[in-house]
């Protein structure tokens, strides 16, 4: 290797390069002196496979038949009503009727009389209770009407305000009186929830 060969090989390392002009690649120059090829990210389209029209027809038919079958199955079950368990006597009770019937001797006439009398007394009691309720409602309505009349006599405007509907009341919930008062600071034991609702065929 000659001496000049070495020099040319290292000439790129020199800071001053008098012989060659500097090659700059920069995007800061205007106009930019280079261009980038656009990336296409795609491949040439494939040729569509041609299907035999007979096969296509067969496939469609199969689809149709499948749907028809489903519809038929649904229709079959539509005629079959869901059983109402409460209205049917369980088979078990019919089978074991002999074992399960209570052996109770017929009621004595005194007991029957007593029951009839008690029922009559109960009917009267409930009637009076009902009448008392209706009367109380009348009293309340009367009291309210009197209050509104008194208000109207003083100021018509206030009366009109008072007879407006109270929309805030409307989703009204109330929990009635219960048998025993709630226990304070009671942490109720955890329980499991198992859904035992029966699913019927053809049910969506």
């Amino acid at each position, binding site marked *: 290797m000659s001496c000049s060969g070495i020099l040319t090989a290292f000439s790129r390392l020199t800071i001053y390069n008098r012989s060659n002009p500097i090659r700059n690649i920069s995007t800061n120059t205007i106009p930019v002196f280079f261009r980038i090829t656009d990336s296409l990210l795609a491949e040439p389209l494939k040729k569509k496979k041609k299907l035999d029209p007979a096969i296509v027809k067969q496939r469609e038919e199969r689809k149709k038949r499948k749907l028809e079958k489903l519809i038929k199955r649904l229709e079959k079950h539509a005629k079959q009503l869901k059983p109402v368990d409460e209205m049917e006597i369980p088979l078990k*009770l019919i089978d074991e*009727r002999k*074992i*399960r*019937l*209570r052996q*109770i001797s017929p009621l004595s006439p005194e007991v029957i009389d007593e*029951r009839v009398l*008690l029922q009559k*007394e*109960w009917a009267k*009691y409930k*009637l009076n209770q*009902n*009448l008392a309720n*209706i*009367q*109380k409602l*009348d*009293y*309340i*309505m*009367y*009291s*309210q*009407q*009197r*209050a*509104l*009349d*008194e*208000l109207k*006599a*003083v*100021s018509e405007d*206030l009366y009109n*305000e*008072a*007879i*407006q*509907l*109270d929309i805030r*009341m409307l989703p009204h919930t*109330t929990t009635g*009186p*219960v*048998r*025993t*008062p*709630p*226990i*304070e600071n009671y942490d109720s034991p955890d329980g499991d929830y198992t859904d035992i609702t029966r699913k019927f065929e053809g049910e969506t």
Partner: protein
Amino acid sequence: MFRQSLRFCTGFSFSKAKALLQHDARWLATESANIKWDLMSAVCLERHPIISKPLNELEAKYQAMLNQIEYENSMKSDHEIRIELEKQLLQSQNQQNTEIDLDVVIKQTAQDFVDASEEEVKNFKFAPKITEADEKNVKTSLKRKLDKNLVLLVEQNVGNKTYWIPPQGLRSDGETLRQTAERVLSNICGQGLTVQFYGNAPIGVYKYRYPKDIRDQGLYGAKIFYFLAKYINGNVEETVKYQWLDKEELQAILPQGIHKSMSQFLIAD
């Protein structure tokens, strides 16, 4: 017969109410325009019963009869049949005096199950129906007389006397009566109470004449309009003198006229 008597009674009370109203209307018509009234709102705050009332004698008797009829018409349950079977098994074993089969003994018998269940019920403690407040007769407590309607009364000055009455106050200009009632309640009892008012219309009224020296100044008297409200939660401020009272206690403590108009719309329990 039943229906007739029902109709008769409602017709009677309706016509009575109507007659009374007509009487009132006539009286109102004669009321001259220059008479001036003070308008006031008052709040009847009710705590509804928490537990149901105990059955009375007839109700208990009827309930027992219904239960008996239900029992007579019912079929034996699985549990009852199991008890019978086990009884039979025990008898046959005793008769034969055979050695006791170990498997049968280890199994829980139906009687064991009954005993265990009864034990569990016995160990569970229900909250008492007669509370501590009942025993000590703490009238400011909401936990008294759980099966009754309680009404809030507050000690208030009217004129130069103090009365136990539902919270009441004068209406200021620009307020509807309902707004007055809400303001009065929160002014007197504090912000801690959550209540639900039953509608915009007053449910009752009580009016009275002022003494003569005030009447001479042009104000004839006051009309107090009562609003019904339901207690939801919260407490009355401790600085206020208040009581939660049932119907009999109300009658004893309320001024007679106010009690008369309030008893018309308060439901007896």
